[in-house]
C-alpha cells in the first residue's frame, strides 16, 4: 500500500512538473508582442526628431540558434537588414511616429513577433546664468564658478503644449533636486559651486504620468573677465576695450572697469574694490567705484592701471586685471 502511494505521488509530481514546463514553453512561443521572450530596445531610449536610432533585438532568454530575422519599418520589410540583430533608422519629425517590428522564425517554424514605436520628442535645455555684463553686450551671460545657474527644459511633442503642462524630475550632479517630480517646474536654479562642468539631467512625464523623455547636459563654467572702457559723461561708455596700446589725448581720461560674468549679487554685496596705479593703491573720488578719472602730469608717459573687485561673501566671485595707458 505504501509502495503504491509512493509511486502515485511520484507520478503526480512528475506529471505536474511536465505540464508546467510545457505551459511555460508554450507561453514563450505565443503572443510575444514585446512581452516575455524577446523585445526591442531603442538607443537612445527617447530619440529626438531626425536623430539616428539603433533598434536592438533582445531575445537572449530563448534559443534562437538557426532562426531567421526579418525587420519591418511601418509595415515594409527592410530586406538589407535580414538576419541582423540590430537596425539603425532615423527618427521622423515631431508628431510622426515610426513602427518597428521584428519577426524571428525558429527552425521548427514557430514565429516570434515583437514591435516598438519611435515617437520622437525634442527637449531643449537652455542654460543661462544670473551674471553681469554691460548692457550693450549682445552675447549671453554665462555661468562662472560660484554663480547662480538656471537651466530651462522645453519639451516639444506631437501636440503643441506649454512647457508647464508636463512634470519634471531634475538632477544636478546626480542628485535629485526639489524632492522629486514636480508638475510645471520646467526650470531650476542652483549655485555652480566649485568645478568646471556640472552635469544636469531631467526626466519628463506627461499629465498621465507616462515617462516621455529624458535629457542630460553638461553646464560648462567659464572664467570671469575684466575689461576697461573709456567713459564720456555725455556719450556714455565706449564700446571698445582699452588695451595696452591705448593712448589718451587731452588732460584727463575717465575709465570704467567692467567685469563680465560675475554673479549679479556682487552689485549689492558691498564688494571689495581696489584701484592701483603703478602697483600702488589709490583713493578713488568717483561716486561709482568702478569708474575713475585720471589726469596726466607732464607731456608724455605711461602708467599701469589695475582694478580688483571681489565678493567677500563668495570669494570665488572676483576678478582683477590691469591695462597700460599712455599719453
Amino acid at each position, binding site marked *: 500500500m505504501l509502495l503504491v502511494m509512493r509511486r502515485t505521488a511520484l507520478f503526480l509530481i512528475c506529471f505536474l512538473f511536465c505540464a508546467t514546463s510545457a505551459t511555460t514553453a508554450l507561453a514563450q512561443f505565443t503572443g510575444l508582442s514585446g512581452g516575455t521572450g524577446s523585445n526591442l530596445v531603442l538607443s537612445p531610449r527617447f530619440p529626438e526628431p531626425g536623430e539616428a536610432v539603433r533598434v536592438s533585438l533582445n531575445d537572449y532568454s530563448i534559443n534562437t540558434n538557426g532562426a531567421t530575422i526579418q525587420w519591418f519599418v511601418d509595415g515594409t520589410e527592410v530586406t538589407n537588414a535580414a538576419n541582423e540583430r540590430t537596425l539603425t533608422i532615423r527618427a521622423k519629425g515631431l508628431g510622426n511616429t515610426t513602427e518597428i517590428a521584428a519577426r524571428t522564425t525558429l527552425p521548427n517554424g514557430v514565429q516570434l513577433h515583437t514591435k516598438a514605436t519611435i515617437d520622437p520628442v*525634442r527637449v*531643449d*535645455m*537652455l*542654460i*543661462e546664468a*544670473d551674471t*553681469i555684463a*554691460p*548692457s*550693450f*553686450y*549682445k*552675447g*549671453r*551671460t*554665462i555661468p562662472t564658478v560660484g554663480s547662480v545657474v*538656471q537651466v*530651462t527644459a*522645453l519639451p*516639444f511633442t506631437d501636440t*503643441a503644449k*506649454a*512647457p508647464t503642462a508636463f512634470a519634471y524630475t531634475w538632477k544636478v550632479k546626480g542628485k535629485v533636486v526639489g524632492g522629486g517630480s514636480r508638475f510645471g517646474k*520646467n*526650470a531650476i*536654479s542652483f549655485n555652480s559651486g566649485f568645478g568646471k562642468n556640472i552635469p544636469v539631467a531631467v526626466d519628463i512625464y506627461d499629465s498621465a504620468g507616462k515617462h516621455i523623455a529624458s535629457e542630460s*547636459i553638461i553646464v*560648462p563654467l*567659464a572664467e570671469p*573677465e575684466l*575689461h576697461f*572702457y573709456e567713459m*564720456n559723461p*555725455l*556719450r*556714455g*561708455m*565706449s*564700446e*571698445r*576695450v582699452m*588695451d595696452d596700446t591705448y593712448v589718451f589725448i587731452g588732460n584727463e581720461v575717465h575709465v570704467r572697469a567692467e567685469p*563680465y560674468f560675475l554673479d549679479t549679487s556682487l*552689485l549689492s554685496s558691498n564688494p571689495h574694490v581696489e584701484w592701483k596705479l603703478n602697483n600702488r593703491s589709490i583713493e578713488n573720488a568717483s561716486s*561709482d567705484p568702478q569708474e575713475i578719472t585720471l589726469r596726466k602730469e607732464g607731456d608724455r608717459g605711461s602708467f599701469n592701471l589695475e582694478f580688483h573687485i571681489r565678493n567677500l561673501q563668495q570669494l570665488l566671485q572676483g576678478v582683477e586685471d590691469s591695462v597700460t595707458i599712455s599719453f
Partner: protein
Amino acid sequence: MNRPLIITAGIVILLLVLGLWVYLMLFGTPDDSGEVFSNLGFELSTQPVTITPPDPTTPLPETTVDTQNGQLRQLTTRPVAGSTFITHASSSGIRYVERGTGHVYEIDLDTGIETPLSRTTIPQTTEATFSPNGRTIALTAHTQYTTSVFVGEIGEEVNIEGIRLQPGAKNISFATNEDVLYTVTQNGTTEGYRHNIHTLNQSKQFSFNYANVDVAWGEGLQKTYLATKPSHDLEGYIYSTANDILTPETFSAYGLSALFSNDFIVTTYTQDNQYTSTAVSAAGEYYNLPILSLKEKCIFDTFAPNYLWCTAPADTSSPTFVEDWYKGKLTAVDDLWLVDIADSSATLYADFTELSGRTVDVKRIDIDQNGSALSFINKLDHTLWLYDLTTE
C-alpha cells in the same frame, strides 16, 4: 623870422604828433584809409543798427555734407546712435540720431544740406530705432547694467515729444508708426509688449521664462522670433511664438544667432571650432553661406529676397570671434559682399579699406527703399557712412 609864428607851428606839429601817437595806441595801424574814418566815428554807410533775427520756423542748415563724391562716403563726424532712410516727394534723405545727445538731424542726399529736426537732449543716447515713416524714434540710453528708453515723435518746434518705456526695455522695434514693441525681463522671465504711444494702450504679446533672449519682430516680419543670445560655449535655440506656444524654427547649435526675413533665417553658429553661417528657407531648405553673415553686419536686398548684403572681415577663424567683437576686444576690418543664398556664393563688392583709406567696422547696416544705397555705422567712432550701389 617871426618868432611867434615859429612857436605856433611847432606847437601844432607837436599836437599832431601827439594825436597820431594816441590814435596808434588806441586803434593800431589801420589796414586802409577808410578804417581811419570809421575808427574815428566818421562812417558814411547806412547800415541799420538793429539786427533782425531769422524766422524761428525756418530750419537753420548747420552744415553741408558732401553726398556726391565717392561711392563710399562718410556722412557725419558726429557719432550716431541710429539712422533711417527717408523719402520725400522730391528728394531723398537720411535721418539720424546723434549719439550722446539724442539730437535728430536729416541729411538731404541730393543737396548735402543737413538740417536739425530735434534739439531735445536725451543724455547718453547710445541706440536709436526709427518707425517706418521715420517720425517716431525710440532712443535708448545704456546706463551701466540697465537701459532707459524714450519714445517720441519729432515735433514742429525742432523737438521731440513722447513717453518713457518701462525701465530695462530692450529688443525695440515698431509694429506700426504708432506702436512700439519692446521686452522687459524680470526674475528670469522675458515679457514682450506692444505699446501705442498716442493712446498709451499696452498689451502683452508673449512671455518666455528665459532672460538672455533676442527678439525679432515688427518691421514687416510675419512672425515673432525668439533666439537665445549667442555664446560659443552654450547651445542656442530659435523659436517662433504665437499665443504663448513656442515652435522650434531651426536646428540648435553652439554660438547660434540669426537674421530673419519672411523668406529666410540666416543662422550663424560655431562648427569645428569656428563660426559658420547657413540660411534656412521657409520651406526648410538649407544653404551654406561662404562668408560670416552676422545679423549686425548683414541686410536683405530690398527687391531680391534671396540676396544678402553683408559686411565681413577676411578672418573670422577665432571660436570666440563674435563674443570678442561684442565686447569690443577686436576690430572687424570689413569689406562689402553680395551673397547669393540660393547659389551659396558670395561676390566681393567693395574693399572698404581701399575705398576710404580707413578701417571700417560695420554695425547696424541699412538699405534704402529703392535698393540704391546702404548706410551703416562705423563701430570705431560711431560715424555714419553711405555706400552708393548705383555707382560703378
